[in-house]
């Protein structure tokens, strides 16, 4: 086997793909619609969408003559979006708590009252 066999590509490491994925979190979009709002060409957008699909993040379906992409609810898309949102709100809540007056000092074992 060649080394490239082991190449693992991060579907969301690319900023354009990340942007497309974020747009689909708002709801299904046709390829043309996504391409118009993107700085890259329509064929490039299609390629990026294919990578997202191969990673199990989005799925596509025909709608008349259009191809519509959406977050794959049975795939990784939905849970990744949920996890992303979870850590976003968790970190915000953590920051508010750790900086608040009411936050107790870390437990000091030596001074603990039995």
């Amino acid at each position, binding site marked *: *086997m060649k*080394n*490239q*066999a*082991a*190449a*693992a*590509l*991060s*579907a*969301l*490491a690319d900023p354009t793909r*990340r942007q497309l994925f974020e747009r689909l979190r708002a709801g299904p979009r046709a390829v043309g619609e996504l391409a118009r709002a993107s700085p890259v060409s329509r064929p490039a957008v299609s390629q990026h969408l294919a*990578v997202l699909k*191969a*990673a*199990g*993040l989005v799925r596509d379906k025909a709608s008349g003559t259009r191809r519509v992409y959406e977050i794959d609810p*049975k*795939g*990784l898309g*939905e*849970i*990744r979006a949920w*996890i*992303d949102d*979870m*850590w*976003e*709100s*968790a*970190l*915000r*809540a*953590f*920051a*508010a*708590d*750790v*900086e608040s007056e009411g*936050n*107790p*000092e*870390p*437990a000091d074992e030596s001074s603990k009252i039995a």
Partner: protein
Amino acid sequence: MTLIHPAPVRKSVVVKATAERSFATFTSGIGRWWPRSKSIGSAPQADVVLEPHVGGRWYERGTDGSECEWGKVLQWQAPSRVVLAWQIGSDWKFDPTLVTEVEITFTALSASETRVEIEHRHLERLGPHAARIREAFDSDNGWTGVLKELSGFLRG
């Protein structure tokens, strides 16, 4: 052949607190600040518990007293780093054979400021997609390098 997987979820924040306080708040204090809306259990969330040692349980408790496992502590290096196993599958259920990793690092920037970074990785192990990866591995086509990288997943 190329294996495509989603990038890890990464978040970071700088807080006005020491690394010690940040670490203690994030771990033992997790039940105090964890957003109640971020819940897996069937009952409304009353508490989130992270047992402060390697192998410790990470779970939420519902208002009805029921407990819902989230995962466990994989590594514990107070006050700089903790690695947790998040073991909730794409069906929103605890799966003891599934391990995705959450690494939280605490870096002191000054006497009173700490950067807290979260990386939730190995998301490719989640959901139906993982089954497809497993099929690819089981075929005779090789993928030796990938197999090595994800051998933990297969052992699971």
